[in-house]
């Protein structure tokens, strides 16, 4: 590749070869986006983690390139959002073409006042590099390369993992294992666990090319393009003037042949013209499937990311959901390890994230069925929809070139305290219990964005001096402590006061003076009230940590 050289991370002989190793609270298998995010989250919470990965570098090839707003917000909390956004290419607009006509245009982030854009495109190798860099800076995170898991022995109170290295095998004992080792998860296979779903009979070619171009920074999707008839084509911009072009090939295509430059170049020439000046960076022919494990928790083994669930690439729902898995898991595992919550809190990781996986699988299956119709009648409806879309609004809503990743709203979570006050809105976009906190521009001691003040710990977000010094002091002393952030009003001892620069925080949270929101450590709303009441907040925290049953 012209624009990128994979780093080589050195293998270091583990201490376990020379002396029996201490038992670890958490062993993470897989140093991809999900394993690294989980490691950073736990490390930031003071939980020592060992991460083992069979490779000694980051992703080979660009692979997952679209990182959604929610994933970026999680990475902000993990201390590595900024370099990823700086290096990546932000975009909000998508265009859909049918043959040679533009039929549909969408803007994923039509309103200002959010720190992060709808999406940033960045090659997975860069993304992982920034996570590795951040993980190395967090005390208590140890990354072990060329360390392949070849055995997993679960016990009632822990797991023994056998790791193969250039020096031979050793064992690592962990209270908990996070299996984030990808769609071909060794841990899943070693435990003999199944996953169920659908394999799609189609092949796609990814061609990453290096090209100076003044194409706009937008997602362009063609159905039945003149340069690639009867199949779909997707164009995306990545960092360093690298462009991702994704051609549907059909099931009969020969993957070995299609990977060859002499097969790829004519396809690119047809699309970009004979004068275009480009070089192929990386190419890959892939198939995909939509499936998940029935449960993500198996005793002391917790599955996350592609190891637990996989989707088709249309919608950017793979890595983005994996990052949300890590976000959901980190604080729960920390509280269980500390003895501050019972271990059934981890069953809610399974409940919340299997539900999110189902939503992702449903959406990505529907997109795939629209993009690659499986019957003549399905293709006829698809083409009819596209034909009507240019003129008729209703048909544009039916066009499905990928329903792009949106954050999971955990509306049915048992951790939520249902609304008691009837005047909160419950419609789309409302900050209902289960929704991830909305961002807003603010002013205060820790930066200009509201999300920077929320999460990590439980946070009580009050509007005006809603909580008061007694409440703030009491919440700080709870077994699961809760910080208080106050929007506007006279400063209160024990609370961080911020200003609502444009009134957007109050609007997005439907706030009146006195309104309070309880946010989980992963920034999801778990309760809200029109006025502060300490016993109610205590009860809601107990509920959100399974300490009430």
């Amino acid at each position, binding site marked *: 590749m012209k624009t990128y050289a994979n780093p080589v991370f050195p293998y270091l002989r583990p201490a376990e070869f020379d002396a029996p190793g201490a038992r670890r609270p958490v062993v993470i298998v897989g140093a991809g986006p999900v394993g690294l995010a989980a490691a950073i989250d736990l490390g930031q919470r003071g939980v020592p983690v060992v991460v083992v990965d069979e490779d000694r570098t980051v992703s080979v090839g660009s692979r997952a390139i679209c990182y959604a707003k929610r994933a970026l917000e999680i990475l902000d909390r993990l201390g590595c959002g900024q370099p990823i956004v700086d290096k990546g290419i932000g975009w909000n607009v998508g265009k859909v073409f049918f043959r040679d006509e533009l039929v549909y245009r969408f803007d994923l982030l039509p309103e200002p006042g959010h720190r992060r854009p709808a999406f940033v495109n960045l090659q997975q190798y860069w993304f992982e590099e920034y996570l590795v860099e951040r993980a190395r800076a967090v005390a208590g995170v140890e990354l072990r390369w060329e360390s392949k898991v070849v055995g997993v022995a679960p016990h009632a109170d822990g797991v023994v993992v056998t790791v193969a290295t250039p020096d031979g095998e050793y064992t690592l004992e962990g209270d908990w294992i996070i299996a984030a080792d990808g769609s071909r998860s060794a841990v899943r296979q070693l435990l003999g666990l199944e996953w169920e779903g659908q394999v799609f009979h189609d092949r796609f070619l990814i061609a990453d090319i290096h090209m100076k171009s003044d194409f706009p920074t937008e997602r362009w999707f063609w159905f039945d393009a003149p340069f690639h008839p009867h199949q779909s084509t997707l164009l995306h911009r990545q960092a360093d003037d690298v462009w991702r072009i994704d051609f549907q090939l059909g099931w009969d295509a020969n993957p070995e042949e299609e990977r060859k430059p002499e097969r790829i170049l004519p396809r690119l020439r047809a699309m970009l013209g004979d004068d275009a000046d480009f070089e192929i960076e990386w190419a890959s022919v892939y198939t995909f499937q939509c499936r998940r494990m029935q449960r993500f928790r198996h005793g002391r083994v917790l599955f996350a990311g592609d190891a637990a669930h996989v989707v088709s690439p249309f919608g950017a729902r793979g890595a983005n959901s994996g990052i949300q898995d890590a976000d959901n898991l980190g604080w729960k595992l920390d509280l269980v390890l500390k003895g501050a919550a019972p271990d059934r809190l981890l069953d809610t990781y399974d409940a919340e994230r299997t539900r999110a996986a189902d939503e992702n699988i449903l959406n990505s299956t529907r997109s795939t069925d629209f993009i690659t119709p499986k019957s003549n009648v399905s293709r006829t409806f698809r083409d009819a*929809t596209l*034909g009507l879309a240019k*003129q008729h609004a*209703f048909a544009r809503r*039916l066009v499905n070139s990928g329903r792009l990743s949106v954050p999971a709203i955990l509306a049915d979570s048992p951790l939520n305290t249902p609304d008691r006050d009837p005047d909160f809105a419950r419609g789309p976009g409302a900050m209902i219990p289960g929704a991830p906190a909305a961002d807003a521009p603010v002013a205060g001691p820790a930066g200009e964005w509201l999300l920077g003040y929320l999460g990590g710990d439980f946070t009580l977000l009050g509007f005006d001096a809603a909580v008061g010094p007694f409440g703030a002091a009491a919440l700080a002393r709870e077994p699961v402590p809760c910080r208080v952030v106050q929007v506007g009003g006279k400063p209160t001892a024990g609370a961080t006061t911020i200003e609502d620069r444009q009134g957007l925080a109050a609007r997005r949270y439907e706030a009146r003076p006195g309104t309070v929101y309880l946010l989980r450590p992963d920034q999801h709303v778990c309760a809200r009230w029109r006025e502060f009441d300490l016993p109610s907040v205590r009860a809601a925290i107990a509920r959100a940590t399974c300490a009430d049953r």
Partner: protein
Amino acid sequence: MITLNTEANIAAPDDFYERLIATHRGLTDAQSALVNARLILLLANHIGDPNVLAQAMAAACDGVSAAPDPGAG
């Protein structure tokens, strides 16, 4: 006169589309064509208004009958 509504009018469009395609699962092309015809007749009867139906027929034909087959390229 009532006019044909071509603004988005289906609350969950992806649910609808999935169901529409699922209605045809396992059918031959000839059976699908028959199901589509019956579906149109049922919906037309439900709509009832002759002006709306005439506008829908015109919108459906627009760009289909006059132009050469765009699928041939």
